[in-house]
């Protein structure tokens, strides 16, 4: 091939590249980078208890702290539509309103505060108290497990309630003993209340692994808002295709929700 011809190719290629690059006009890369400034809100409103709202910073990915740093010196306001109250900071990033009668059934509450030129707000409504909460038994036997033997069958306790309007429910098992004894002596985990987000159901059946401790339990059936299970049960976070977690906080993250409970007693023995 002659030099002239090579030159021709180069010119042709050059022209083509120029024409096409002009088609790919400079479009701004819309990579929305990290918005570290959105505060994280956590609040569970329950009638008859005082209002506690925690506000945190987000964490950087390589932070090793368990929770974000508390966001201090904010002016939080809580309104029930007619009355608006200010919350006081009782500890770093913990804002409270001490009047436990402020949260009432079926009322809608709006939280708002300003942070870095933005108003952060969230809204929730207190759901109805669960109706017709009953249990098939008020005691629960947990079979002894030991190596080499076949354990006895676990007979579950069945909890029922009425749920004609497809409400969302959560159940919490709270051991009320001062020093609860362990089901399995080899288990070294500290006692914790057990929480089960149940969804739109009207019954729950206990399982052996529900109970790691013996003694007297309060079984709390909460009617919750969907936002609670959406925010805390949200998936995403897989290794390849990630999605943002649900939040009902405008200009922020986390959850601001209300719930309403009914309680039964249960004695767990071995």
């Amino acid at each position, binding site marked *: 091939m002659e030099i002239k011809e090579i030159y021709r190719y180069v010119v042709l290629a050059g022209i083509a590249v120029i024409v096409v690059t002009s088609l*790919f006009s400079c479009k701004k890369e819309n990579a929305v980078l990290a918005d570290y400034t959105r505060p994280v809100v956590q609040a569970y409103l329950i009638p008859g208890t005082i209002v506690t709202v925690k506000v945190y910073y987000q964490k950087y990915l390589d932070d090793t702290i368990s929770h974000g740093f508390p966001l201090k010196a904010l002016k939080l306001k809580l309104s029930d539509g007619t009355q608006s109250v200010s919350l006081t900071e009782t500890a770093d990033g913990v804002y409270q309103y001490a009047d436990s009668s402020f949260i009432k059934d079926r009322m809608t509450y709006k939280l708002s505060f300003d942070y870095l030129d933005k108003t952060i707000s969230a809204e929730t409504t207190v759901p109805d108290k669960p109706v017709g909460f009953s249990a098939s038994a008020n005691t629960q036997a947990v079979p002894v497990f030991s190596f080499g033997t076949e354990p006895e069958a676990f007979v579950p306790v069945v909890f029922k309630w009425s749920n004609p309007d497809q409400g969302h429910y959560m159940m*919490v098992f709270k051991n009320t003993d001062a020093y609860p004894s362990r089901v399995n002596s080899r288990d070294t985990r500290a006692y914790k209340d057990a929480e089960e987000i149940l969804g739109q159901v009207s019954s729950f059946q206990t399982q052996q*692994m529900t109970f790691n401790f013996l003694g007297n339990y309060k079984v709390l059936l909460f009617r919750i808002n969907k936002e609670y299970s959406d925010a805390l049960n949200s998936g995403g976070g897989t*290794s390849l295709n990630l999605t943002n*977690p649900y939040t009902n906080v405008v200009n922020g993250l986390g959850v601001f929700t209300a719930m309403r409970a009914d309680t039964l007693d249960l004695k767990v023995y071995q």
Partner: protein
Amino acid sequence: MRIFLLLLVLTATTGYTAMAQRPLVTEAKISGFYTLSLDKMMDTLNAKCPVHIVYDRDMLSQYDVVDHFNDENLKDLLAAVCKKNGLRYWVDADQTIYIIRIPEDVNRLKKNKAAIGLKDEGRGVHVGQTVNSVKDVVERKTPARQIPFNITGRVIDRSSGESLPSAHVQLRHLNISTSTNADGYFTLINVPADTCRLDINFSGYQQDTYYLNAENIKKEIVIGLFPAVRALNEVVITDKRAEGLMSTNKRRVSVLQISPSKLEELPNIGEKDILRSFQLMPGISASNESSSGAYVRGGTPDQNLVLFDGFTVYQVDHLYGFFSAFNSNAVKDVTMYKGGFSAKYGGRLSSVTDIVGKEGNSKETNIAGDLSLLSANVFVEKPINDKSTLLLAYRRSYQGPLYDKIFNKFNSSSATTAAGGNRPANAGTGGPPGGGGGGFGGNAASVSTPASYFYDLNAKYTYAPDDQNRFSWSIYQGNDNLDNSRTLTLPAAINSGRDISMSDKTTYGNLGSSLKWSSRWNSKLYSNTLLSYSTYHSDRDNSTKLTVQDDDGNDQEISTGTFEKNNLKDFSLKSDWEYQLGGQFKALFGAFGSRQNVSYESSQNDTSKLIDQHTKALILGGYGELEADLTTQLQVKAGLRETWYDQTRKTYLEPRFSATYAVTDKFTLKASTGKFYQFTNRVLREDILSGSRDFWVLSNGDAIPVSAAVHYIGGFSYETGQFLFDVESYYKKLDNLSEYAQRLTGNRRGGTVSLEEHFYNGSGYAKGIELMLQKTRGRYTGWISYTLAEATNNFAAYGGEFAASQDTRHEFKTVNLYHYGKWTFSATWIFATGKPYTAPLTSYTIDDYTGTAKTFLTISDKNALRMPAYHRLDASITYDLIKVDSRKTGSIGFSLFNIYNRANVWYKQYNVVNNQVVTSNVNYLGLTPNLTLSLRWK
């Protein structure tokens, strides 16, 4: 003796009726006592025997012949003399015999012969001071016919009798040309004179010239091509149907063709890979090591229709996508249509890969085999009788170092991420499915792992009862059995010594079969009717099986985990017809019907089915296309395809149009456009590690709409003797695309798990330009290609426009081949902009009501970030095993993949460890050597 046999074969080959015009004279015998130099000997042979021997006098004069011959057959004599002196001979298409030392000599001798021209009329030719040349024209006994007439013929492989589809046949110096159909037949209309010459081109074969005369035009012409010897400097892949100075087919837009026989020259990872080789061409993304599927012009692999002997293949790769599912030994021809394709094809948005399997040698039984670090491959072809042939090819991987390397790439990482699929970013807690059983402490549990493998099988039986009809039955089966299961045998104290088996098993594959009847009704009408069946299955079992004793002391098996099953059955009937309306027009038309049955099941703990879908669909349709040579320069193809789809009860019309305009001999403009619909989609799971990576679903017009695309393609090609410069640009508009996501909701402990499926719908577009400069001839061949592209999706669910996951802005590829004697050196370098991805930006932690801390990640916009650029260099050396008569019997190849061990990122992985989000890169293969040995019996 073997040489003698080979010559006999050659004789037999050329004794084939229709090649009688150019007989190989092999009956010649010679007697006498000779003491002379070899060049003089050749002169003597040229003089005494009716053969044409071309040689280099300088070279041959060094050798002497001292022998006595008594009625010695010429072939034997030639073979003996050559062998003794370390020479070879090469029999050309016109039966000229070239005496050579290295294969390159053929070209040199040919050139010299041509340079000397047709001045002399003697029969013998040597390159030296006096030259006698072959007569380049066939003697004619009757005067030339001047009334235009039609000729029909067939192009075959001269040695095996295999028909050659899509070979390009052109009348020399005239703009009349055609391509052979699927059975190698062609018809040329309005041939002006019986003195014309036909130039025949087929990639991977030597260009041939066929001389028409008054006799041979009366019957069907059979043209046998010789496989190209590497040293003849054929290109490996061509952007046109055939290469060559005079006979290029510039009349197709966005078409690529590959010759499987040339694949071994390219660097490979374990296998000669058909689909991967296409990835070296512009417009087909090369930075997807984990997918042999074709990402064509911003499309996804499921938008590429893959046909094998007419039936659709749904699973095109092996071993997580690293190898294509087609055994190159069983493949005759592969054509890829990158866009704007004919109305004959449909049902896919982006492209078509049409693979034609070999029929098998109709002349002699042959056995061939390949052995590489990944797999063993056996291939048998056999003529059953003079009307039928059989071909069998089987390939199976073995768990050698290469297989394990790739397998572990997937499975070692799944140990840390498998659990991340369903729970928010707690992948760090992962482990073998089933949780390992840490509670068992230090007891001596033994673990055994089973084998994983893939295999594929091709079989084809062809029966040609007469010249008009051909029947063929083709079977393809390919399966992958990927097993990462473990069996834990527990000590007797625990669970009475029974086993806990943890399954992590994925099996997938295809079974396809087609029965084809092709018929030539007359020289103008040809039909091809195909009845086919194709199935695809993918099963994933990620579970723990535990045997326990119930109250009555009986053993009971309990399975926990996830099970997924995806099945697709496709039963199709189609009939394609071609009618030559005259010199300028050709009509293509046909009808098709297909019944598809797709099911997808996902279940938890062998009891609850989370998803259980079964869809049946019926697709019916027809098409018509007219190819017209409006002037000698302008050719247009206009077609219309109509499809009725029973799920939506709608009719879909797809107009197609393409045109080429030859401005000069060298410069051709081309353009095409068309509308395309897709009814069957393969949806990708969000997380490839937490289940099957993808599965097929049928559009239902509701959650999964019928997707649609419009292509606009324009470009030109400019070529000279050795170079081809090709430019194409495209714009594709895509509508009704679907993306899929699964979310597990509910609490596992509460037993109220439900799986939510989400289909997100949106639109998109892809645009780009492809430039390629290719050197098609010479010792050094290869090409440089550059693609500038953009693929954008627009899904409301993701907040509008975002870069599609397969979007690659710049892609630069260079392929270099250098032939020297029996050696071939090749090197390829690929550079591609990194793929877009979505990543976590920050994390935050909140406590639930009871005080359990839960950590969440905030995520960037969809695909807002880019991986680092992908690049790698591969190289290989191939040594050909060549016989005295220059036929290739095998090769030894050594290749190096990713020579400078570039760590190309496949994907990023995020684990929450001690409140910290740890980001790690999962990389593609590093430096990987491979050795391949191929052998043919004949």
